[in-house]
């Protein structure tokens, strides 16, 4: 029996060692946030400065801007990106023609596999005010197309709606799975009682997918300050930077471009702490008010 336990630990070893090296060792590196770190001196040799780096961020002009932009983009994403896949799944579930439904699904999943890089390239190409597809359509209708990527106020719309285009179909799969688990006799009984399609959606489908929806909402709300770095970073430019500088892009710039290692680490740590607190809080509330929770 002892042999089996040892063998189990052997199976576990590769991942455990990797996690220790590349996830846990960096956590010790958080000390950098409380130091005036310089690579020459290393973590052991650099001087401790307490919370100076955090205060520097909190007092800076960038603090308000990055927090606001992160929250705006994140909340907007949830506001649109949470209900739409549910609506799509409800609609798709009621479609009678099997062939059409299948084709519809295959096609709407397709953009999900485009890489973030190519997606951002597509956005930039299509929105180009001189040669883009949208500009050409606008010209067809006799209108001039503005340079959207240069407008700070438009950034959040570009970010959120291009995301919807790319992931709407894919995000609905999980709800479709929940809907396909519904006992068909429910619908039969409802039909006998004279229920319309809309009534079936309202009284059968929606209650059945509520638990799934709650769990996904908790997960999303939990990562409210953790929106994807990649897309924002690739779409931002000098003209829209006022609404596109978010916490993670600022961490990158401070760390990799301005060489302010300690400040960058402090901001990153602040972000992580807020994320964990929000996740626990949302989970607690969900537990209290509904039956579903993560842990």
């Amino acid at each position, binding site marked *: 029996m002892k042999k089996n336990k040892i063998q189990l630990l052997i199976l576990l070893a590769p991942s455990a060692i990797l996690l220790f090296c590349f996830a846990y060792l960096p956590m010790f590196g958080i000390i950098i946030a409380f130091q005036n770190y310089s690579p020459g001196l290393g973590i052991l040799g650099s001087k401790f400065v307490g919370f100076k780096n955090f205060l520097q961020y909190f007092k800076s002009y960038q603090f308000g801007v990055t927090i606001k932009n992160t929250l705006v983009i994140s909340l907007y994403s949830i506001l649109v990106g949470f209900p739409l896949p549910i609506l799509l799944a409800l609609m798709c579930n009621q479609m009678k023609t099997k062939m059409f439904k299948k084709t519809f699904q295959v096609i709407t999943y397709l953009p999900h596999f485009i890489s973030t890089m190519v997606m951002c390239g597509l956005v930039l190409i299509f929105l180009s005010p001189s040669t883009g597809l949208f500009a050409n359509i606008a010209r067809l209708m006799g209108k001039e197309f503005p340079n959207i990527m240069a407008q700070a106020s438009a950034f959040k719309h570009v970010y959120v709606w291009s995301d919807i285009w790319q992931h709407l179909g894919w995000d609905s799969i999980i709800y479709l799975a929940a809907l396909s688990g519904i006992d068909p006799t429910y619908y039969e009984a409802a039909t006998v009682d004279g229920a*319309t399609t809309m009534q079936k959606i309202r009284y059968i489908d929606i209650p059945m997918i509520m638990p799934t929806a709650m769990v996904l909402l908790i997960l999303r709300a939990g990562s409210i300050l953790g929106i994807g770095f990649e897309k924002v970073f690739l779409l931002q430019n000098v003209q829209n930077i006022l609404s596109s500088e978010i916490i993670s892009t600022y961490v990158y710039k401070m760390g990799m471009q301005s060489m302010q290692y300690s400040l960058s680490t402090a901001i990153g740590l602040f972000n992580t702490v807020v994320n964990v607190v929000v996740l626990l809080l949302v989970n607690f509330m969900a537990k209290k008010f509904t039956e579903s929770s993560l842990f």
Partner: protein
Amino acid sequence: MTRTRKLSQDKVVNIVFHIIAILMIIAVIYPLWFVIIASFSNPADVASGKVWIWPKVIDVRGYEKLFEQTQLWRSYLNTIIYTVVGTAFALVVNITAGYAMSRKDLPGKKLLNTFYIVPMFVSGGLIPTYVVVKNFGLLDTFWVMVIPFAVSTYNIIVARTFFQNSLPESLWEAAQIDGCSTLRYFFGFAVPLSKAVIAVIGLWTAVGHWNSWFNALIYLQNEDLIPLQLLLRRILISNESLLGAATGTMAQELRQLSDMMKYGSIVVSTLPIMMLYPFLQKYFNQGVMIGAVKG
């Protein structure tokens, strides 16, 4: 009377659903189609809005110029190698861990669970991770793209759930009585019986590798090591012309050629995944279901 009214109401709902679905299909397909035809069109026609459904004249100069770039081939090959080696390595690491975590007799299971879950929510952040990777001497090497971030707690959970649900406990007990050890059981029974989950996790990981660029941006300097997506960043986002600088009328032509190369590079980089996708869709969907079980 009410019955017929309800029936006709259902008909209207059904028609509306199908109209929405058709509009969505067009919204997804047309931009993708446009990229393909634009890549084969004369750039001046595309820019002035003469290309809508089919190229006015077939023009493959964009592809010719693109394929002349040795950088493209180099980075394409790099991406293929990273994807193949990285996926194989990640599969070994995550499937073994998933299996070990699924066994009831794993010693210290509670503690190990926490050990694996915590990195999902807490990380050292950009700079501390960079310092660790640097100290391991992985900076600017092939291995940095394969080893450090191979562990995925999410995939481990998916594998664990699969092993728990579809490998009956009695099979292990019977094997044990016959004197089968854990390692032999894992390689002889568990792996062959779980091809579905291995396929799913392998596909997810492969798509992730194919599309990833951030780690390369941070950890790689060597031009010979950069992956395709990073080269795309130069072409699509930074607007760097791979063809060099020129002046006067040449500049105009070069700009148009660059535009063609943008469309072409999107097609060349995205087509492989898009072509594979319809055949693999079954597995992707399965993956979402397997993943959903844990919720």
